Every structure is written in C-alpha cells, then in structure tokens.
C-alpha cells in the first residue's frame, strides 16, 4: 500500500480513530480541544494523494475501494479546512458547556462521513459514508435542546431518511445492472446506459443527492436546520455537509446524461432564484445565509446540468472549484456571525463587518475576489444565451441577498452579558483564517487546476462582471428602505404545506389502527384463517388446472 493509499484510509479513519479513543477517560476529557486535529489527514490526502492509485481492501469478498480524483481532492481539501477551522471554533464556542462532549461525539461521526463521501469509490462504502453524514447531523442540530432545534432536527432526520431510501433504491437498481459481483462505482456507471431502469436510477439518485444539496422542493430542511444548530455546526452544515450532495451528483451522473442535464439546469436556476426570493424576507442573519446556500447550490447544480447538456469538457473541475469557493466563503460567513454576536464597537466594524462585506460581494462576482474566479470557472458552462443571462441575474440576486445579510449582521446587538464574556482568541483566529482562505486560495489554485490565468480574468470585460454587483447594490438600498412591506415567509417556507400532510398521516394511522383492532377480535381472526385456507387452495387449484 503506497503512502497516498494510507492517506486515503487516514482521511476518514482519523475521526473514527479519535471516536474509538474516547472510550478511555483521558482523551474523552480533552475531546473538544482535539476536534480541529481530526480533519488534518484528509487535508494532507487532498494535497498529496490526488489522482493516486485506488485502494482496494479485501478484493475477494468485500471489495471495499477508496479513490480520489482531482475534483474530489479539491473539494476534500476545502471541506477539511472548513471542518478544521470550525472544530477550533467549536472548542472555543462550546468550552465548558454541559453537552460539549456529546456534541463532540456527534461531530466526529458526521466528520468521518463527510470526509468519507469524497474518498469512497464503491456503492456500499459510499452509501455507508452518506448515511454517516446525514443521520448523525441530527445530533448536531438538537444540541441546544430547544423545541425549535428538536423540530428542525426531526424534519432534517425524516428528510435525510427519505433521501437514504431513495439512494438505497437507486443503488439496488445500479447494483442489479452490474453484470459481475463487483460493486465499484466505475463499473456501475459503465453498466448504467444499457440497464432497462436507467431513467429511474438517475431520477432516484438526483432526488437523493438533490435533497442533500437543497434543490427547490426538497430544500425545506436547510433553512430550518442551519439557524437552529449551534454556530460551528451551522458553518459545517452549510459549508461541508451540503457538498455531499454535490459530490454525489458529480460522481454518479453518467457523462451521457444529456437529457438530465437540462432538467438539472432548470432545477438549479429555479432554486437559485427561490433562495434569493425567500432570503431577502428573513431577519435572522443565519437564516439569510441558509437561503444563500440554497441559492448558491442551485447555481452549482445549474452549472453541472448545463455542462452535461452541452457536454463541455472539464465540467467536473469547474463545478468543484465553484463549490469549493462556496465551502470556504459560506463557512467563513457563518463564523463571522458567531464572532459578530460577541465583538462590539469599532473592533467589530474592522474585524468582522469589513471582511464579511468583501466576502458577500464575492458571491456576487465582484472582480478581484475569489467569487469572481469561481464565476469565471463555470463561465464555459453557463457562458452565453439564456442560461448566461439567468446566471448573471442570479449573481445580482446573490449580491442583493448578501448585502441584506451584511445589513442584518450589522444590526445584531452584541448582548452585554453574553455567555462568552471574553472573546476567545481562537474564535477570531478561525474566522479570519477562513476569510483569508476564501479570498486567497481561489487565486492560488486557479492556475494549477488548469482553469487558466487568474490575472487575465481580472483584466477581461470588467463591465460584464461589474453590472450584476452594481445592480444588486441598488436593489439592496431599495430593499433597505421598503423591505418592511415584503410578506414574512416562515423559515421552512414550503414546510407549512406539509402541516396538513401530517394530519393526513395521522388519519391513515388511526384508520389502520382501527382495522387492526377489529382484526384482533377472535371470530374475525378465526374467519380470516379459514378464508386464508380457501384462498390458498383456490389459487393453487386454479394454477394446477
């Protein structure tokens, strides 16, 4: 096993190792402090083990394979960085609180899943990693124990389970399509085109991953869960966990899925505008950020969809780059909200509001920021014609939404006697570190990843890049003045509709319970037994004729 294969194993093995270490008293006591260490092997794997040989464990039976190609490595690196920064932040943020250790345990499980998703290369281990990233997230969300957090956690868990179900069915169909016993994703993809249930498989996979990525009808859990979760958890939820859906789409959509490309593009753009539309009506800055995540994921999926539809080469790397930037920027902004809630006065303006503003404008595609580079990377996919226009409009929307966020962030009154009286230096370090990464890393990686020269992106048609930002700023000013008249959208927007569905479920449950109780009466059960005899006899007799 070469060095890089060890790294692959270590990337998602480290958090699990730390988890097992917690059985003993010593590491458990210092646990919250060690959180930031866990993702580092994954960061090293991203940097060193990209495009290394795949690692196959127990080839005869289990065929447990791990592999890491370039786009996955990029995403893995960004996600690992965010987990590490959020881990340090969590140590400072939680400190001595009672539930800290339990939170850390849930954190480690979700971390291993989130990293594992990028390296898993066979159906079963990918499903296992995906289950590990979606189900334990419940533990992170309900950490505060408030009824609002519990409801958000339950909705997230229910939708996560439904997502798992869709994926299980999809993988079952995929597994069936593969002729041999092998379960590797590559073979599954190869066998997919000629399998009869191709469209069903792709549909199920899109539903499963779309739910995790937050595409429109299935996004309702995102704006509910992120605000309810404690600060580091929201950062990770928005930044890293959502990306599991993106890597799933990247890895499982067959290159020839042109028909699905159009669907994805449509869904993505709809999600982008829906996110902006709902976001501007929110007051809580974390909810605004959540809706911004929904919108940005929409743009990412749209880019992927268009890339597939037009069969543009290099789509995977472009989409990965866009998503990686989102990981860093969005994670940083969530940390900013945390720090902003504690810091006060002048230091708040300089250390929090200013960098937050720059990052916010980056989302709009302000030239010179990482965001601009991200938008340039996906330009070949969303380049021209209607999708290009729509992409520009969504950039404007993003700018509007982010400026609204900045205003809401500024409006947050740092409560005097907050539970964290002194600002733990590590919180500030984490926030500023992530902000710097969000700004500089795109610049550093643009050329090595073969996306072209970052500098000439800066130089090219400034006007094309600038007008969405300016238009967005104008709208933001208008929103600031007349925002009050906008209709108040409840956090989970579409979730309100499901309220009635709950009632329906209750009615079905009651009806089934009454039927079952009736069947428990002795004469009825006896007659059911006799009827079963006659039915079996009749069916077999008919078949025998």
């Amino acid at each position, binding site marked *: 096993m070469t060095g890089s294969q060890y790294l692959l194993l270590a990337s998602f093995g480290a958090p699990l190792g730390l988890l097992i270490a917690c059985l003993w008293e010593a590491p458990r006591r210092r646990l919250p402090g060690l959180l930031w260490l866990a993702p580092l092997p994954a960061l090293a794997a991203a940097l060193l083990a990209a495009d290394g040989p795949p690692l196959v464990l127990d080839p005869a039976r289990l065929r447990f394979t791990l592999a890491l190609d370039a786009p996955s490595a990029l995403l893995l690196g960004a996600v690992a960085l965010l987990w590490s920064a959020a881990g340090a932040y969590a140590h400072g943020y939680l400190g001595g609180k009672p539930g800290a250790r339990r939170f850390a345990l849930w954190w480690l499980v979700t971390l291993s899943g989130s990293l594992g998703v990028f390296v898993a290369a066979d159906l079963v281990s990918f499903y296992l990693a995906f289950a590990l990233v979606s189900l334990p997230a419940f533990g992170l969300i309900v950490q505060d124990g408030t009824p609002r957090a519990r409801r958000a956690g339950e909705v997230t868990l229910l939708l996560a389970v439904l997502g798992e179900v869709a994926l299980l069915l999809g993988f079952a169909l995929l597994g069936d399509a593969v002729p041999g016993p092998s379960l590797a994703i590559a073979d599954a993809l190869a066998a997919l085109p000629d399998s009869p249930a191709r469209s069903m498989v792709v549909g199920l996979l899109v539903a499963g991953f779309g739910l995790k990525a937050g595409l429109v009808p299935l996004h309702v859990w995102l704006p509910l869960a992120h605000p309810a979760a404690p600060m580091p958890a929201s950062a990770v939820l928005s930044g890293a966990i959502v990306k599991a859906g993106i890597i799933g789409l990247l890895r499982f959509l067959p290159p020839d899925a042109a028909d699905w490309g159009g669907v994805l593009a449509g869904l993505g753009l709809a999600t982008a505008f829906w996110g902006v539309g709902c976001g501007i009506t929110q007051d809580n800055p974390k909810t605004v950020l959540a809706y911004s995540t929904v919108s940005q994921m929409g743009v990412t999926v749209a880019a992927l969809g268009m890339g597939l539809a037009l069969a543009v080469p290099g789509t995977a790397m472009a989409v990965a780059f866009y998503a990686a930037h989102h990981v860093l920027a969005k994670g940083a902004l969530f940390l900013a909200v945390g720090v902003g809630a504690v810091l006060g006065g002048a230091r708040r303006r300089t250390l929090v509001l200013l960098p937050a503003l720059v990052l916010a404008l980056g989302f709009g595609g302000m030239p010179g920021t990482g965001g601009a580079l991200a938008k340039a990377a996906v330009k070949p996919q969303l380049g021209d014609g209607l999708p290009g226009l729509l992409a520009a409009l969504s950039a404007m929307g993003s700018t509007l939404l982010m400026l609204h966020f900045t205003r809401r962030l500024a409006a947050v009154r740092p409560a005097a006697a907050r539970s964290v009286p002194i600002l733990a230096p590590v919180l500030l370090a984490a926030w500023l570190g992530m902000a710097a990464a969000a700004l500089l890393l795109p610049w550093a990686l643009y050329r090595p990843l073969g996306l072209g020269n970052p500098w000439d992106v800066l130089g090219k048609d400034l006007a094309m890049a600038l007008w969405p930002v300016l238009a967005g700023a104008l709208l933001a000013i208008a929103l600031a003045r007349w925002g009050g008249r906008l209709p108040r959208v409840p956090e989970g927007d579409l979730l309100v509709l499901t309220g009635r569905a709950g009632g329906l479920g209750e009615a079905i449950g009651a009806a089934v319970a009454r039927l079952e109780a009736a069947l428990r009466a002795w*004469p009825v059960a*006896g*007659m059911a037994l*006799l009827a079963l*005899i006659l039915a079996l006899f009749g069916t077999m007799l008919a078949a025998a004729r």
Partner: protein
Amino acid sequence: MTLDGVLAGVLDGLLAALVLAAAGWTLAAPAAFPATIGFVGFGLLLTLAWVRLGAPDVALTEAAIGTGATGVILLLAVVRLRGGEEEVSAATPGRALVLAAGLLAGAVGLALALAVLALPDPAPGLAAEAAARTAPLGLGNPVAAVLMVFRGLDTLLESVVLVFTVLAVWSMAPDRHWGGRPGPEFPRQDDGPLALLARLLPPVGLVIGIYIAWVGTDAPGGKFQGGTILAAMWVVAWAAGLVQAPSVADRRVRLMLVAGPLVFVLVGLAGFGIADGFLAYPPALAKPLILVIEAAMTLSVAAALALLIAGPPEHPPERVT
C-alpha cells in the same frame, strides 16, 4: 353387496349419524354442563367408530384418554367455572358473524370431504412393511412396534411433553402455593356409595390396567391405555378422600413422572453401544428391553395423567408438623 355388507353399511351410517348428532348437541347445548355430558357421549360413540375402522388400540385410547380423562377434566372445570353467563352472551358474535363463520367452516369441511374422497383408495400405506417388520422383533402388535421401534422418537418426545405439561400446570399456581398438594382437597368419606366404589374398584382396576399395559406388545393395549386406567383408579380413591395427592416438591413423584422418558432415553443411548444406533434394539434383546420401557412408561403415564387431572396446587404447603 352381500347381506352383511349392507347391514354393516347401515350400522356404519347409523353410527356416523349418532356421532354427528352428539357433536351437534355438544355445540348447541344451552349450557356448558350438558355440553360436556354430550361430549362424553360423543367420545363413547367415537370409540365404536374406531372399532368399526379396525383400530382396537385407538378405540381403547380414545375411550381412556379422549373420552375418560378429558371428560373428567372438563367436568371438574365446568363445575368450578360457574357464572359469567352475561359476559358469555355479550361476547357471542351476532347473527351475521355466526352465519359467515358457518359458511366458511362449511366450505373448509366440504373441501376436506372432497379431498378425502379423492384420495387413492388402496392407499399407498406402510401396512405390509410394518406388519412384516413386527414379527422378527418378537412383537405381535404392529401398532406397538411402530410406537416403540419404528417411530420411537415420536413416543419419546410425546412422553417428554407429558412430563413438562405437568410442570406447566403446576407453575400456574401462585408462588405461595408451591410445595402444596395438587388439586382440591376432597373430604374423607368413610361410608356411602363413593367410599364403597373407592374400596371395591381400584384393586380390580389395577389388575386390568397392568394386564392391558402388559398385553400391549402382542395384542391391542399398551402403556397409554393401561396407564390411564391406573390413573383413573387413583382419581376414584382421591375423589373419595381415601388418598391425598403427594406434595409438588415430593422427589418420589418427580421420579415416577420422569421414569418412563428417562428409561427410554437411557435404553436409546445404550443403543449406540449394543445396537447400531440411537433407539435401536439388538434383535435378541428387543422384546425384553421394550417391556422394560413399557413398564416404566406406564408408571409415568399413570402419574402424569393423574396429576394433570388433579391440576395445580390450590393450598400453600402445610407447615411440617
């Protein structure tokens, strides 16, 4: 059809009609007590049917266990389970349900009748082979040969079932009764008809019971039938108060209960050594071994049936005086 063939047909038809009439009465009787009496009558008529079917062993068993022992248990229960008429009438299903149940049960019965008629008439049974294999074993009665030799495992499992059914019945009592005497306490009657019967009948019954158990290997009879008669004799004496049921914790009673199956298992395991496998008998020693097992089994069956009739202990154990 010869004359006596016709007569036999008429007799069978009459017997069948009587059996069904008794069964119908058992279901339709107004109260539980007459229904139980009807059931006992039904059992006796059924015994005749078994004689007509050419199965004397089974007729004996049906009379002894199917009608006698079951009848006693049910009569004892009916007497002690008085009351609850209104609960029963409330729980009786309505006319529609009764009709539906009747239709379904009738349909199953009809299907069964058709299937029985459709069975191949000279049924491909094991009659010849069983009969042929019984003689070399030194046994006269093929049924005993099947029970003890060919399907010995069935009989062994069944006797084990009897043993732990007794324990199951005992374990239904509350904790404080453990160690007490099973069943109700009958007052001691020194004179009167029951006392006369209880003194006159048991000696005769013991002889008959042992005779039937003994003759089982060569002629209709056997351990279950003989054991039941012995148990019946004990029940008569117990009902007249002449004997008391032994305590539940009494080691001797447990040894009696377990004797039959344990001997059967030991002889079976000995089969590994002296014969070619479990429950196999060396040809020379077959008959004596079987008789030893039969004797032990008769003892166990008698004890088990008597204790099952007696039921769980109903009083705490008397302090040892």
